[in-house]
């Protein structure tokens, strides 16, 4: 007996395959995507009651193709009414589901669809939403609740994204190189954003949101299976696994954040750590170095330490130096400063942080204040650290981060403190 969860997994896995078949046959991506979504919803209702069809994929293709046929017929009828020079109405069998609609096992449209949904003409929010629906097979309601917006808002975002794609009139095919590589970078970034959106979610009302993490891992796994030799794909998958491995330990029962150094490492997901470490070790040995691989390597060094004090900080510092060279950005500098502090002492770390004060992107950012507070605390300047924690707490727009920062400040409130 299959559970609803099994059905959901199966539907999400089949969604891009079914959509690929339809788009290839009917071309209109936006209408096909709606038809597939309707077929998925129908399956979610019928399969648990009536049992799984012999070929779930063929079932979905048939149902979705029927929707498309109905819609095209009614469009033709409308056009015929409007236009006296009526267009030739295609014969019925032109739209009937053909035998052999099953995908060849060696053919997978997931990557083509991902590249389409992450088209640079779309805003990042639209890329995320469309990817989750068209490739991830999530319903609009599920995506809306994950992003904590009304369903109508999310529906509008998705429909607008599809309209924008229609306007660009791009063919449903893999773009040629070098465009292909560039577009793949965008896909990886979107998958990273989906992961992060779920990863920062903690508990309670955010449970739905944390499912995004699982979804991002699933999709990145699919891309890795299609492009096993791409080091950055392997790196991103490793980074997700090595980060998500810490999820059980990173929040307390009441949702408070627990710093990496204070987490109960026995709670870390060993299977994820092993898989992630294996992936990143393989990628670093074979592929061209890239930012996801470096971030994964740093995560692996953290995850491999049995206790926080066993962390190989010199190695982490070396990796951050490389990362600053490959993909310089202020967030990297921020973490680099922590590694410098751990190896060369807090004052050296604070000196590196000072270089960010001139950066408009960072100067008023709570993360800069938070890291500075940590390093001041390390340096023993508790009064300055406390006031910096409180500045960071005021600046953050995250409730759990605010609670964490206020708790750090409270710890430093000594008896003789004013």
């Amino acid at each position, binding site marked *: 007996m299959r559970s609803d969860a099994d059905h959901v997994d199966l539907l999400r896995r089949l969604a891009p395959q079914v959509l690929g078949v339809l788009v290839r046959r009917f071309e209109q991506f936006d209408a096909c995507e709606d038809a597939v979504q309707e077929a998925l919803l129908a399956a979610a209702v019928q399969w648990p009651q009536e049992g799984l069809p012999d070929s779930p994929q063929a079932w979905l293709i048939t149902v979705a193709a029927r929707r498309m046929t109905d819609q095209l017929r009614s469009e033709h009828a409308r056009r015929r009414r409007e236009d006296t020079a009526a267009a030739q109405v295609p014969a019925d069998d032109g739209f009937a589901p053909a035998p052999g609609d099953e995908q060849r096992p060696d053919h997978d449209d997931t990557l083509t669809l991902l590249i389409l949904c992450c088209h640079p003409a779309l805003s990042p929010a639209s890329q995320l939403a469309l990817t989750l629906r068209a490739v991830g097979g999530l319903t609009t309601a599920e995506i809306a609740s994950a992003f904590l917006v009304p369903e109508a808002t999310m529906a509008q975002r998705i429909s607008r994204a599809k309209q924008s794609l229609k306007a660009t009139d791009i063919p449903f095919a893999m773009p040629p190189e070098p465009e292909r590589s560039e577009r793949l970078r965008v896909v990886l970034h979107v998958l990273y954003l989906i992961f992060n959106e779920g990863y920062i979610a903690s508990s309670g009302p955010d449970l739905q949101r944390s499912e995004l993490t699982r979804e991002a891992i699933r999709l990145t796994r699919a891309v890795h299976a299609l492009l096993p030799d791409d080091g950055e794909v392997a790196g991103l998958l490793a980074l997700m696994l090595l980060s998500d491995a810490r999820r059980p330990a990173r929040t307390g029962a009441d949702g408070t954040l627990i710093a990496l150094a204070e987490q109960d490492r026995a709670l870390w997901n060993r299977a994820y750590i092993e898989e992630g470490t294996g992936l990143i070790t393989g990628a670093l040995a074979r592929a061209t170095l890239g930012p996801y691989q470096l971030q994964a390597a740093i995560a692996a060094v953290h995850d491999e330490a049995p206790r926080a004090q066993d962390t190989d900080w010199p190695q982490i510092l070396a990796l951050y130096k490389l990362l600053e060279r490959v993909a310089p950005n202020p967030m990297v500098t921020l973490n680099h400063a922590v590694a410098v502090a751990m190896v060369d002492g807090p004052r050296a770390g604070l000196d590196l942080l000072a270089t960010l004060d001139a950066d408009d992107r960072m100067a008023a950012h709570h993360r800069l204040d938070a890291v500075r507070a*940590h390093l001041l605390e390390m340096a023993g300047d508790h009064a300055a650290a406390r006031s910096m924690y409180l500045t960071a707490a005021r600046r953050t727009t995250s409730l759990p*981060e605010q609670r964490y920062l206020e708790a750090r400040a409270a710890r430093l409130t000594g008896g003789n403190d004013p």
Partner: protein
Amino acid sequence: MKYMLLIYDNAQTRETFLGEQGEGLMAEIDAIMNELTESGELVGGEALADPSNTKTIRLVDGAPAITDGPYAEAKEHLGGYLIVDCESVERAADIARRWPSARFTPLEVRPLMDTSGAEM
């Protein structure tokens, strides 16, 4: 990122919106609301009734003391709000700048607190 746009009114706001430029101002509001709906940025929003309908509740020695009218007399009062989900604070500020009442009374753009957080 979600932002609340707090829209402040004053005693003349209704008059302005009922006056000869009123129709144009309302059309501008409709156009912005349509734009936000179509872009998938609109999360919600409401208009508040006139401040004279306010009840102010305080506890005095543990007993509720209810008075009619707002807590503080001010030249400007909160007239309504919008919640938008935007790519950047610049985009949210741009919506506020174009909101027609901004020509007469200010708007505030404030980020909403998020229940998620990153480990530090």
